[in-house]
């Protein structure tokens, strides 16, 4: 079954229909709202995500969240939306090919140019914008914050955060609410998404709708998935060899990038509890003390325990081909360099303020022990990683900017032209 070409469907549960009918027959003048039950359209073998008691999914919420995700009024100066740093054609990671003021290149000591996102005040973000894919199956959000277990809470960080300022909405909340309250599209969408709320135009409801939309971003139709479902022609022989290597004890990749979404940060209804794991991969080892650069010290920032220095989430590898640059700080430019880092068992930075031999980081994961690859093996692994690219996900119109052409939230059409080298171009 081709689940991606179908729209999500919403069915009325039989019992609700029945109770509606009964209620109608006994009290015909009473107004009744019919609750729709949300149906996750998933391929076989994919477990259902958890239902959030305080924010059950609905088509109306997803639709509202989609408009909000692309709405620049959610930033302090009206220039940035969530989509400014999360582009669909990059699996909702940042796109270095789009010059919208939200990204610039910087330098990492002696290593090379890297790309960093920028907020509305021009403040550089220390971290790389993450891809947004299959978030409904994730246990924690952002690179290393163990406290953020819900997207509705996470949404407050880019919206209101001051360290760094991202969308800079703080202090402009009432302006935003006043604007959306009079927007005819929102006048239709907010009450539909939150029929029980007397006043649905609040920041709380905005974050709930954003959560619903982001949980609806589902990608299980990469060549790898089709291969798993029995289509053996979906993977090249090179990608199949790369898959063997990826799941081998020699390379150990799968220990951290395992599971349904190639991350141990996993949660769904069949798990007794969420799986949570942060790891240090030896990307830095400043002064031989195991330290990571300031503002990018991972789990340590939260626990203040030195053994948590440099521990970050192993991000999902779905669509990883599209999400360069890599690592929490965007300091690795391409997949080849990612393999350099892991084959060396950690990165060595020879000079500058962050010099150090990453492979000797005392807090490093035991699975990052290094390996040697022949050129063919390297090519095979990269072929496998590229088999995780879901071109239907990144072109799925359900996730695209819904605002009408000419609206302030609809970017210039030039911005939307995919560059010719995009792997999903025919």
């Amino acid at each position, binding site marked *: 079954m081709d689940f991606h070409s179908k729209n999500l469907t919403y069915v009325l549960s039989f019992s609700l229909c029945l109770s509606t009918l009964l209620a109608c027959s006994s009290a015909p003048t009473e107004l009744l709202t019919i609750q729709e039950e949300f149906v996750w359209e998933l391929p076989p073998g994919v477990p259902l995500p958890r239902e959030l008691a305080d924010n059950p999914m609905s088509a109306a919420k997803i639709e509202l969240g989609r408009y909000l995700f692309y709405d620049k009024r959610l930033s302090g100066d009206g220039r940035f939306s969530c989509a400014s740093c999360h582009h669909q054609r990059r699996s909702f990671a940042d796109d270095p090919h789009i010059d919208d003021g939200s990204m610039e290149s910087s330098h990492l000591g002696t290593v090379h140019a890297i790309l960093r996102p920028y907020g509305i005040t021009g403040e*550089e973000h220390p971290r790389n914008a993450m891809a947004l894919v299959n978030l409904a199956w994730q246990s924690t959000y952002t690179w290393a914050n163990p*406290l953020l*277990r819900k997207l509705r809470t996470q949404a407050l960080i880019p919206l209101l*955060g001051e*360290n760094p300022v991202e969308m800079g909405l703080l202090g402009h909340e009432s302006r935003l609410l006043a604007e959306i309250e009079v927007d005819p599209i929102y006048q239709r969408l907010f009450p539909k998404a939150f029929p029980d709320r007397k006043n649905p135009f609040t920041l709380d409801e905005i974050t709930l709708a954003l959560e619903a939309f982001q949980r609806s971003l589902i990608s299980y139709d990469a060549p790898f998935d089709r291969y798993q479902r029995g289509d053996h022609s979906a993977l090249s022989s090179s990608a199949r060899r790369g898959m063997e290597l990826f799941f081998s004890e020699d390379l150990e990749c799968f220990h951290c990038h395992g599971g349904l979404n190639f991350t141990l940060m996993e949660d769904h209804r069949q798990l007794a509890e969420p799986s949570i794991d942060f790891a240090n991969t030896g990307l830095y080892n400043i002064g031989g*003390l195991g330290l990571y650069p*300031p503002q990018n010290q991972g789990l340590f920032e*939260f626990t203040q325990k030195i053994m948590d220095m440099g521990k970050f989430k192993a991000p999902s590898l779905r669509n990883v081909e599209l999400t360069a640059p890599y690592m929490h700080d965007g300091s690795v430019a391409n997949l080849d360099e990612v393999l350099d880092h892991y084959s060396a068992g950690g990165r060595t930075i020879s000079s500058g303020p962050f010099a150090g031999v990453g492979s000797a980081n005392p807090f490093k994961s035991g699975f990052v022990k290094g390996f040697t690859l022949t050129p063919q093996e390297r090519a095979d692994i990269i072929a496998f990683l590229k088999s995780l690219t879901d071109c239907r996900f990144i072109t799925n119109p359900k996730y695209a900017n819904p605002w009408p052409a000419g609206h302030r939230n609809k970017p210039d059409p030039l911005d939307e032209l995919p560059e010719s080298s995009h792997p999903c171009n025919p």
Partner: protein
Amino acid sequence: MKKISLFLINLIYIYSCAQLHDEEKPKLEIEIPFAAKVGSENFSCSREYSGIGAKPGGGSTIKPHDFRFYVHDFEFVTNLGEIIHVKLRQDGSWQYENVALLDFEDNSGHCANVSGNTAATNHVIHGTYEKPAGSIEKIRFVVGVPEHLNHKDRAVAPPPLNLASLHWDWTTGYKHARIDFVSDDFKNSNNEEFSGQSANSTGKFNIHLGATGCTGVGSQGTAQCSVKNRPVIELTFRLGQTIVADLKELLATTDLSVKDKNGPKGCMSSQTDPECKEVFLNFGLDFHFDPQSTVPTERRRNLSSNTVYPTSGQKFFRVE
């Protein structure tokens, strides 16, 4: 569930005892005035202040952006050793349970157009206390939002705990204190490529005091923080006096002409943020992280949640 019921019964019990107790002892109204100063001068958003910090040859000039902090658990100590709790008036705006917000910025002058600032101000704590046998000699209070209120859902919290600008969604707790200013002397980085700063934020020095070392589930209100960062203040005090919070004293040992060494602009409470060191000591808080040692150092005072003993060495508060 059993635990909750017991807890409720306990609460009811405590409450009824307090009621009985109330009838026995007369209640006195109290107003405890606070003042924000910069040295001997009153704090004003419209002014700039020179001679601030430890820059050799006379300090630096600063312009204020914000000056707000939470306080809780007020109590008096008498010459007989009695400890008298002050019960805060529940005013629906500045005071809730045992916590109050003191707000000295009025969104004017340099503070205008700073995100999240408000025109309203609040300088006075209103409460009641039971008449003690002895005479009041000392006042104690704690800076910050108490632990039991610190990790609730801010979106539905009552005033004064509902201000986004005083909440750290990132660590799911409040900014115990928010004291921001700019100084042309202060350059935000010695490594511009890595600081996360830009021309727009040059000179900005933010003091955001809050709990760190937090684990748990933020959105469920169960976060636990190992570094509480709540200064416990004890001052010699008699009724009618004013408690002064002095920004000049807080910054007295920080050289504002030195570039921000690492991390966020100013001090955002991390034990690895070099700009926190002197500020923390002047709050009377420990600052213990030593990157040369890979063993976490013991923190004597921060580990205790509340009023075990007063913070020593604080310079921020005095009585006038």
